[in-house]
C-alpha cells in the first residue's frame, strides 16, 4: 500500500506541515460547530417566539435543519475532502429515496 503522506525528505518538516494542516482543518470544524449552535438557537427561538405564524416557522426551521446537516456531512464527516466520491454517491442516493419516501407518505397516505 502506498503511503499518501507528503515527503520532502525531512521528516521533521513534514510533521510540522501536517500538524499545521490538521490544525487548520480543526479551525474550520470549530467554525462549523459555532454556526450549527447558532442555527439551532435560531430554530428554538423562532418556535419559542409567539409572534410568528406556523406557516412561516415550519419551512424556516426545516431549511435551518438542512443547512446544519450539510455542515455535519461536509465538515464533521469530511465529505468536503477529496476521495469522497463513493460516499457522496451513497448519501445522495439515500437522500433521494428519503425525500421520495417522505413526500409519498405526506401526500398520498391515509390521514
Amino acid at each position, binding site marked *: *500500500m502506498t*503511503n*499518501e*503522506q*507528503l515527503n520532502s525528505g525531512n*521528516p521533521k518538516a513534514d*510533521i510540522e506541515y*501536517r*500538524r499545521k*494542516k*490538521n490544525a487548520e*482543518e*480543526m479551525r474550520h*470544524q*470549530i467554525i462549523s*460547530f459555532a454556526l*450549527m*449552535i447558532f442555527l*439551532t438557537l435560531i*430554530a*428554538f427561538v423562532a*418556535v*419559542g417566539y409567539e409572534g410568528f405564524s*406556523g406557516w412561516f*416557522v*415550519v419551512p424556516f*426551521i*426545516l431549511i*435551518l*435543519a438542512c443547512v*446544519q*446537516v450539510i455542515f*455535519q*456531512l461536509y465538515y*464533521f*464527516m469530511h465529505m468536503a475532502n477529496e*476521495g469522497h466520491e*463513493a*460516499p457522496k454517491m*451513497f*448519501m445522495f*442516493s*439515500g*437522500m433521494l*429515496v*428519503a*425525500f421520495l*419516501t*417522505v413526500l*409519498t*407518505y*405526506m401526500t398520498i*397516505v*391515509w*390521514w
Partner: protein
Amino acid sequence: MHAEEKMTLEKWPASPERQTLEAKNKFVGFWLFLGGETVLFASLFATYIALKDSVPKSDMALAKDLFEIPLAFAMTMILLTSSLTSVYAMYHMKNFEFKKMQLWLGITVILGLAFLGLEIYEFNHYVHEFEHTFTSSAFGSAFYTLVGFHGGHVAFGLGWIIALIIRNSKRGLNLYNAPKYYTASLYWHFIDVVWVFIFTVVYLVGMVG
C-alpha cells in the same frame, strides 16, 4: 506498510484511516451502510409525519401537549457538543496523539450517556404523566419507534466507542485500529445528523402545532 506495524510519529501517514486495503474497503462499505440508514430513518420519519396526532380519543395528549422547549434544547446541545468532541478525538488521531484521542472519546461517551439519560427520563415522563405509550395510539407507536430507534443507535454507538477505548487501551494507535476509530466517529456524527431532523420535525414542528 503492515496494518499492525508499530507506529511512530514520523511514520504516521496523513490519512491513517485509509491506508490499508481493509481500511479502504471498510470506508466505502461503511458509507454504503450510512446511505441505507438514511433510507431506514426516512421511512420512520415518513410514518411519524403521516400518523402525527392520530389518536383514538379526543382527550389524549397531542404533540403540542407533550413536548417542551427546555428538554429538547438540552438534549440537542448535548448531542451537538458530543459531535464536536468526537471530531476533536479524530483530530488527535491524525496527529498520532493516542492518549488525547482516548480522552476526547471518553468525553464523547459521557455526553452520549447524558443524552440517553435525558431520553429515558423523557419517555418515562410521557408514559406516566400523559399516558402516552407505544400502544396508546398510532401517534404513540410512530413517535416511540422513530425516537426510540434513534436512542437505540445512540446506545449502540456508545457500546461501540467504549469497546474501542477499552480494547485498544494498551495497544496504542496503528493502521489496524485507526480505521476502526474513524468509522465509529462517522457513525456518531450520523446519529447527530438524524437528531437534527428529529428535534426539528418532531419536537419543534410538534410545538408549533
